């Protein structure tokens, strides 16, 4: 009876998974096994592996995703930490989350306005006498905007894990002789690792397949796997190759998920 009830409630979940997770992935895999003329082949994979352009692109994607995640983390951890010590921390958190409700494209266009030759930033630079600079279409602007957009997704899990720390653990650490810095290193950081890991997943994985920002802000100077997929599907119409890169991306995501999975340190006791 209990089991039946449980499996009944599982139906919507399983249907969702089947329709929107398994089926698309199976389709992508299927597509990747056909060449542009519709013949079954593994050539997409072999050409991917043999092409330095694709490999470089893959490396680029991973490298930029890493940079974006790194800068996001660098800003988000201290921010989450400080937020947590504020009186109305929930309110402040909400203010940081707020921009995520605005459409991504709108925010991106806003940055074009800010960073362009006649944008506010250059206006300011000219005003202080620093002259005008090419900001748009640089690596800097690409990483800056991508990090800006991803930051809330990093702050939120870190904030939550900080919020969950029992304050008496901090007292206990001080009580046992740890300075504020030692307490941070030995207690706070390890206890917020789960939050950092989920933040890493939430930022790194989407960053792998960024394509709009690469074009609008990065000016297509940075070609990532996301851009390549878009190109193949919309421009060259080589769906097979586009799907192959998609498969590579999916594999990369699983690898990241595996590396950042929740682990119990040692002793083998499960939670």
């Amino acid at each position, binding site marked *: 009876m209990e089991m039946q009830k449980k499996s009944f409630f599982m139906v919507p979940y399983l249907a969702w998974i089947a329709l929107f997770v398994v089926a698309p992935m199976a389709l992508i895999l299927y597509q990747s096994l056909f060449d542009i003329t519709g013949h079954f082949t593994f050539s997409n994979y072999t050409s991917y592996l043999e092409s330095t352009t694709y490999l470089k692109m893959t490396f680029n994607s991973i490298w930029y995703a890493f940079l974006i995640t790194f800068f996001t983390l660098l800003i988000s951890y201290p921010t989450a930490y400080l937020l947590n010590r504020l009186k109305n921390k929930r309110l402040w958190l909400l203010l940081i989350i707020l921009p995520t409700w605005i459409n991504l494209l709108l925010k991106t266009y806003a940055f074009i306005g800010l960073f362009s030759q006649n944008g506010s930033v250059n206006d300011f630079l000219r005003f202080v006498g620093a002259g005008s600079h090419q900001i748009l279409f640089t690596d800097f602007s690409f990483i800056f905007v991508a990090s800006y957009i991803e930051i809330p997704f990093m702050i939120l899990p870190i904030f939550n894990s900080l919020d969950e720390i*029992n304050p*008496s*653990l901090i*007292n*206990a*650490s*001080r*009580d*046992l*002789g*740890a*300075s504020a810095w*030692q307490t941070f290193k*030995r*207690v706070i950081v*390890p*206890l917020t*690792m789960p939050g950092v890991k989920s933040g890493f997943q939430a930022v790194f994985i989407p960053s792998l397949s960024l394509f709009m920002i690469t074009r609008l802000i990065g000016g297509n100077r940075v070609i990532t796997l996301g851009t390549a997929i878009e190109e193949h599907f919309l421009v060259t119409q080589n769906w097979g190759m586009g799907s192959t890169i998609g498969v590579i991306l999916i594999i990369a995501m699983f690898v990241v998920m595996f590396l950042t999975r929740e682990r*119990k*340190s*040692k*002793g083998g*006791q499960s*939670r």
Partner: protein
Amino acid sequence: MANPIIEFKNISKKYDDTPVLKKIDFEIESGKFYTLLGPSGSGKTTILRMIAGFEDPTSGEILFEGKRIDLTPANKRPINTIFQDYALFPHLNVSQNIAFGLELKKMSKTDIQAKVAESLRMVQLSGYENREIDALSGGQKQRIAIARAIANEPKVLLLDEPLSALDHKLRKEMQVELRALQQRLGITFIFVTHDQEEALALSDQIFVMNDGRILQSGTPVDIYDEPINHFVADFIGESNIVPGTMTADYLVHFDHKDFECVDAGMRPNEPVEIVIRPEDLDITSADKGKMQVTVDSQLFRGVDYQITGHDADDHEWTINSIHQTTVGAQVGLVFDPEDIHIMRFGEDEETFDARLDSYEE
């Protein structure tokens, strides 16, 4: 008193203008078991947190071995705390938890290992080194928290209601163990509880607190036998408290009669309160009793009966008796002069002690 290890001098504490501690003064002697006893909100935890260094006094000084310590940060005080929720680090296993303070002291690996093993032996959990904290029972967590604290060899150990989360049986066992541990280690224990039975069983010295003040301090026997006021008498054990007047030294008037007693030093005809513990009252036939009560209820409690009744003035009396009686019957009560304890209204601890000294011995 020998050199006190901790002294509170005129300590007050306010949270946003709400006074929580009001001019607290006390001295703690090295090597004894102290208990702060008081109802919820009386300020016990606040005192403990000040000794540990998590809270600053609003005014006053705290001395440790004669030197001011209230400006020293918590991590520099030779004092460790056992937290009510144990506060074991969930990301570390048992031995890493115990080694936490030792590693900070840069102790060598082999020394740490030996110390961890020794501490675990003290709390009878040898062999638990590699257990995860999640995989411990409440009682085991309690012991690990104790092991973690004593591994640092503190001079003073603070315990904030450490047994309150345990079931009755385990609680009794841990009481015995704590007391034994304190005597074996010779560390000063400052223990917080609102359980008077626990305080009486464990302590060398008890501080009874209420509303941010220490009302009375003394040995368990002193406090039980000679409570300073109504609050203490009521809080420490069951008691019968009735109003009366002091006819003369060693003679007190209540229930329309004069009774011989052992208290003195009051003004003639001063209004007072009389305390008689239920176990000091015996039941006899109405005509043989020093006073008479009508029995209202009777409760069998295993070792004895708890009998309640009322006297002619409708004051309630509780009697613990091994003899059975009948509800509704009129019975006599007998007691000895030394069973009567007299409390004056509004007497503070200093005058109370001085008065006792003036006629005792």
